[in-house]
């Protein structure tokens, strides 16, 4: 049975040429360290990120009779196993496959939400969200505004696996958050691990506005934590200070938070520099207060993301920090990001903003 499942997984595959991404995730450019700040006192269980997401979806379906999950291949459990067992438990009317069409999935989801039901749509890879860009940007984001509040699609949540996975190349590695950050009306969040993923996903599903949750796929299996089993939510729009520090603020989100945690260790041991690490968590709206407060204290800041530099969300952060913290800054805001190229296959180790590029930037910030 187990063998059959693995075979099915490989054979069914997903968009793109190959079917092994979901089985192997190398994630060699970072070391995962579990969250220590657990937002609940209740029973906990060891879960990786896909299991935590599955658990959140299970809770969402159980606690809201109108909630439904749909997308490509979600019926058998999803190519990343996030919806495993849910169709069996809740039936085909609540967990179901759609035809292979992203614009259809999001348009359909908006329609479900517009009549008051809870729609949890899955886009198989964030790289394939672009066919639905029109439905997200022109429709979902503007539904409430343009109707003067007569109609809204706030009960829509879109989940999409994102970011680097070691060998995903152009179309299984993208981090499209900046495209959406330019769109008033939607919310965009990126979890850094299982505890965060569960709490944020439940918040997105219950939030009165349409949300996109980008799930770093490298963490689906690599990230394992003691996740509270109960129903809990984590705030959208609030950043987390992962590590307190006094000399430099390091800001990232998703997988990159773990890179920055390592950078902070290296900076401490090699440069005797104390770094404050911030997980931005929420791209839109983002937590200005936490960021500005930290930068005013440390006076130096590094922003780091996997997406390309030009027009990346780092640009928004840099400009805002410069406006708000001008008199406090001791060095220009540094950005260490993916290059302004498509995401390459064999060159991935040279493309990513890895710990060594970040460490070099910290050194420059200190020596400026």
């Amino acid at each position, binding site marked *: 049975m187990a063998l059959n499942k693995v075979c099915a997984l490989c054979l069914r595959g997903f968009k793109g040429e190959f079917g092994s991404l979901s089985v192997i995730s190398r994630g060699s450019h970072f070391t995962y360290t579990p969250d220590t700040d657990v937002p609940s006192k209740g029973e906990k269980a060891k879960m990786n990120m896909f299991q935590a997401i599955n658990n959140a979806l299970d809770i969402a379906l159980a606690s809201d009779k109108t909630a439904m999950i749909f997308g490509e291949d979600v019926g058998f459990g999803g190519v990343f196993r996030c919806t495993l067992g849910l169709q069996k438990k809740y039936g085909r009317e609540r967990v179901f496959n*759609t*035809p292979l069409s992203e614009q259809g999935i999001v348009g359909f989801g908006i329609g479900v939400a517009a009549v008051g039901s809870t729609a949890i749509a899955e886009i198989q890879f964030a790289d394939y969200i672009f066919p639905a860009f*029109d439905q997200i940007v022109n429709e979902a984001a503007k539904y409430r505004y343009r109707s003067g509040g007569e109609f809204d699609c*706030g009960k829509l949540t879109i989940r999409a696996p994102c970011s680097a996975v070691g060998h995903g190349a152009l179309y299984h590695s993208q981090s499209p958050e900046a495209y959406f950050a330019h769109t008033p009306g939607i919310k965009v969040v990126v979890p850094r691990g299982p505890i965060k993923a569960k709490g944020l996903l439940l918040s997105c599903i219950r939030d009165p506005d349409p949300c996109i949750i980008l799930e770093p796929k490298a963490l689906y299996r690599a990230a394992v934590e003691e996740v509270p089993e109960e129903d809990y939510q984590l705030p959208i729009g609030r950043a987390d200070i992962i590590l307190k520090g006094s000399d430099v603020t390091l800001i990232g989100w998703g997988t990159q938070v773990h890179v920055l945690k390592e950078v902070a260790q290296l900076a401490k041991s090699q440069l005797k520099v104390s770094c404050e690490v911030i997980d931005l968590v929420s791209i839109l709206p983002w937590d200005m207060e936490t960021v500005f407060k930290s930068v005013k204290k440390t006076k130096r800041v590094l922003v780091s993301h996997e997406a390309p530099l030009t027009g990346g969300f780092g640009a928004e952060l840099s400009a805002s920090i410069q406006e708000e913290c001008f008199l406090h800054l001791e060095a220009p805001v540094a950005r260490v990001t993916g290059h302004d190229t498509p995401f390459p296959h064999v060159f991935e180790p040279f493309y990513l903003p890895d710990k060594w590029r970040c460490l070099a930037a910290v050194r420059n910030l200190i020596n400026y």
Partner: protein
Amino acid sequence: MDRQGNIISKDEDPKLSDKVIIKMYKEMTLLNVLDKILYESQRQGRISFYMTNYGEEATHIGSAAALNNNDIVYGQYREAGVLLWRGFTLQELIDQCYGNKDDTGKGKQMPIHYGSKKLNFVTISSPLGTQIPQAVGSAFALKGMHKVVICYFGDGAASEGDAHAAFNFAATLECPTIFFCRNNGYAISTPVDEQYRGDGIAARGPSYGMHTLRVDGNDVFAVYNATKKAKEYAVNENKPVLIEALTYRVGDHSTSDDSSAYRSPEEVTLWATNDYPTNKLRYYMETKGIWNEELEERWLQQARKDILAAFNAGEKKLKPKWTEMFEEVYKYMPTNIKKQQYEMVEHVKKYKEHYPVEKFET
């Protein structure tokens, strides 16, 4: 009905009461008068934009009459008759075109982008075809509640990818949706032979596994019958139906378009005189003895009077508070928008002579 308003096949006569038939005729002609007045008012620069419904009145009224107000409507933009039928008032229509303080959309969208929660008419948006998969999602969510979702779109919009997605989703997910295509021969300047080479839109239905009907869109009874049948089937079977109503866009595409640049006036006249939906119904009513020249005159006068009264009232009203611009982006206003609103309020205080503040509520 033939072009002289004679019922061709007796057993297909929907046998509507005189009262309903007169209401149908009145709303179709009311829409006509409304179009004339609002079109002219755009020409005079009193509203910024308008789109008339000339020639397609029967598609709106015939289909609307076959449904009830619990059924959800998703439209494109040329379906104002559906709203009229459901009870949207002239004042509500005109307030939207003016974007004044009583517009339910709070002046945020261009004219004719109507919407009404209480009448289950989902707010119109400009991007073409986007409403089609949305209608399918709504139909899925409402399955088993004895409601149908009707979704209107033009022959041009049917070329969008969203139309393909929607037809396929509705069929595979078994959604009680009526796809209502108004095939009026043109998408702005593009004639149908540059839009598709198959047998119209209807021929696509069966390839998605959808029951399909093609009707004379200028025959209000034919449209009524088709829609009624479609609803029965969709609700009982939980399956979609495609209706293609063949009609002709008698007016310009919009007030920003002069259609004589791409089609002959003779072609337009031919449709306007030989096969016009209101004329056809009027012949029928006169033969039946329930309408005459005197009633016609009296009704048109009344219609004109009502519209002008609403028009003048709509024009006099102030626009909503301009700070409304920042509201309802989200359910609750986030900090960044609060900050921008505050900055703009401070700015306008200082520079108010440069902004039309007197036209807006305070």
